[in-house]
């Protein structure tokens, strides 16, 4: 009980510090890293839900991210929608697409899902580049305006400064992670883990794997789409590089290092890996080589990720006293 309240206190203080950063430092780079962390951690958190908890390897996250970005950017600039409705529409479209991909491929197998999700991400890039009348093609949509949000009480918040975007994205990230946390610690998350650990057993116990898999995909698509919609207004431009395979690699690394199926681990690794590439900018050339090495090492040495390692330790602890006389 005590340990829990200490943890809760640390969590609240940490959150307060995060929200106080714009007041503590005017350094825009710290804010830029914070924004980057907020966006990437939502992506990796969603991937963790799909891969870490439910066991489905997905390359589609970046596609949802981009679909949300484009939808929000187009609706806000061309249809004069408000930021919230544009972002909500982006999230909704990403979710709908995610459901279609998930439903059609998961009826076959999780392997089919992995391959289809990869093709989907590649097709997104092609569509963004070449459906010029819709997406404006390779030039992207530059000069996205600073959005204004109506706050309760008739106030209007014009989001123009990096600090505003920092609050906005961090706020959204807190919401997104709270939602993910809520799911993974509930019986829904337990069912997802059950499906990952032993799908036929779960089926024999009345669990519908397809429903839970679709739930995980839909949730990750919704959050990725929405965070994409918010993120591009900070960048002021959306172009096909929003579908860069590099994002997928980064997300995967975050989940693998943090430990698939470990909520706090992935959150922590997202934070570290957002900052590390920037602290190590001098290794630019070899950064991706290093990422690759990490992936290989993780797969060879920690096949089950952090969760697998913790599990092995737990098993060892339980066995110990029974070995001793």
């Amino acid at each position: 009980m005590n340990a829990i309240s200490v943890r809760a206190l640390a969590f609240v203080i940490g959150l307060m510090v995060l929200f106080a950063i714009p007041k503590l430092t005017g350094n825009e780079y710290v804010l830029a890293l914070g924004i980057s962390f907020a966006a990437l951690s939502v992506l990796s958190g969603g991937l963790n839900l799909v891969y870490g908890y439910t066991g489905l390897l997905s390359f589609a996250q970046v596609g949802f991210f981009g679909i949300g970005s484009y939808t929000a950017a187009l609706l806000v600039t061309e249809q004069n929608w408000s930021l919230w409705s544009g972002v909500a529409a982006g999230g909704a479209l990403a979710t709908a697409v995610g459901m279609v991909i998930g439903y059609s491929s998961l009826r076959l197998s999780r392997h089919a899902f992995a391959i289809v999700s990869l093709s989907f991400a590649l097709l997104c890039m092609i569509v963004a580049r070449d459906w010029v009348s819709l997406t404006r093609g390779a030039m992207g949509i530059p000069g996205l305006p600073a959005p204004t949000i109506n706050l309760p009480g008739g106030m209007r918040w014009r989001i123009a400064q990096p600090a505003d975007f920092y609050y906005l994205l961090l706020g959204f990230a807190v919401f997104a992670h709270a939602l993910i946390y809520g799911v993974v610690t509930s019986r829904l998350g337990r069912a997802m883990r059950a499906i990952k650990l032993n799908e036929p057993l779960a089926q024999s116990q009345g669990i519908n794997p397809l429903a839970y898999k679709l739930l995980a995909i839909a949730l990750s698509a919704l959050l990725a789409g929405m965070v994409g919609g918010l993120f591009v207004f900070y960048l002021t431009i959306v172009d096909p590089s929003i579908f860069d395979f590099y994002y997928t690699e980064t997300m995967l690394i975050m989940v693998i290092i943090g430990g698939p199926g470990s909520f706090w681990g992935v959150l922590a690794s997202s934070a570290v890996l957002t900052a590390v590439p920037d602290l190590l900018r001098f290794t630019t050339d070899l950064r991706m080589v290093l990422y690759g090495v990490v992936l290989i090492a993780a797969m060879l040495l920690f096949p089950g990720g952090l969760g697998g390692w913790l599990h092995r330790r737990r098993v060892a602890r339980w066995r110990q006293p029974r070995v001793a006389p």
Partner: protein
Amino acid sequence: MFNMRLTVAAAAFVALAATGIAQAQTGSIIIGASTPLTGGVAHFGQHARWGAELAVAEANAKGGALGRKIEIDFQDNRCNPAEGVKSVTQMLSEKKYAAIFDGLCSSVALAIMPLIERAGVPFIVANASATSIAERSGVGGNKWTFKVNPTDASMLDALVGWLDKEGKAANIAFLGEDTDFGRAGSSGLEAALKKRNQKLVMVDFFQKGTADFTPVLTKIKARKPALLALYAIDADFQNTIRQWHGLGGGVPLTGRVLVDQVPKEIMASGFLDGTTSVQPYDPSVDTPANKTFVEAFTKKYNVAPMLISFESYETINILIDAIRRSGNASPAAIRDALATTKYRSILGTELEFDANNLVHNNAIIFAIKGGKVVIIGMSKT
């Protein structure tokens, strides 16, 4: 737990920023540069870096600027606006940079523009080709952005003007990469042709990194256009040109053909005779300043300069010239000095920024005749 780490990181950056400010008063004058050093266009980022570093080295050999040494720091942006914004934000927050250079990709440059405007640091673009950069600069709104390379539209207008004079502006097909480069090429060409009551007879785009072009080239060959406007660079250019040769082509090329990179066997065979091309630069331009540049570049990097390296070299020279005239190397003073630039290009013309902070250097129109590249004219863009 991650909160703690971020706080530590934040503290570290505040400290870093503080030392940055201290340095700015006395030490070198530092230019910040963001360019793709990894990813699909890293090859160009590398040339951009080489051109810029050569210019800086030459300036330093002549005593730097205002009695201070000049430095240039490069950061990677993968040709991705998100990375571009992050890298430039970092440089801006350190407050030690006198100016920001390039971005290389149009989308990255466009994403950088609001940042440098807010920070009040001049941003000088050497390579990004999108027309919207200049449209949004100077009287277009962003007083801190300057663009040195000509827009595609103006160059293509010069090329089509010349083709029209020769009676060759009809029946042109277009093949280009589906990037801002290729898209700007097709729209620029369409616009220039429209002025002369012509239009492109077929337009096709390919994904960067496509290896096999034989299907589309066969189609173009069968369509028998008078000219094929080609907007391909890097490996794509090498693949198209060799496959066009393999298919027996039969149609001369035009557009932004990289005449300096055509394999010499193909060039010598006369296969490309009748080709015209417009480029802001070619290593073969016969001015003493260019000869010196090509020699110095080749000596330093073991490879001949290309368009990108030239544009970076010239842009940094323009920037250094402005720093020298600024008096105190403060960003604002450099911006004002840039606005009054009168710089003699190594191609011979004198350059000034127009109301949109855009330079109008001469474009070079080439032709291939008898297996050799000849410059048939320089045209104001």
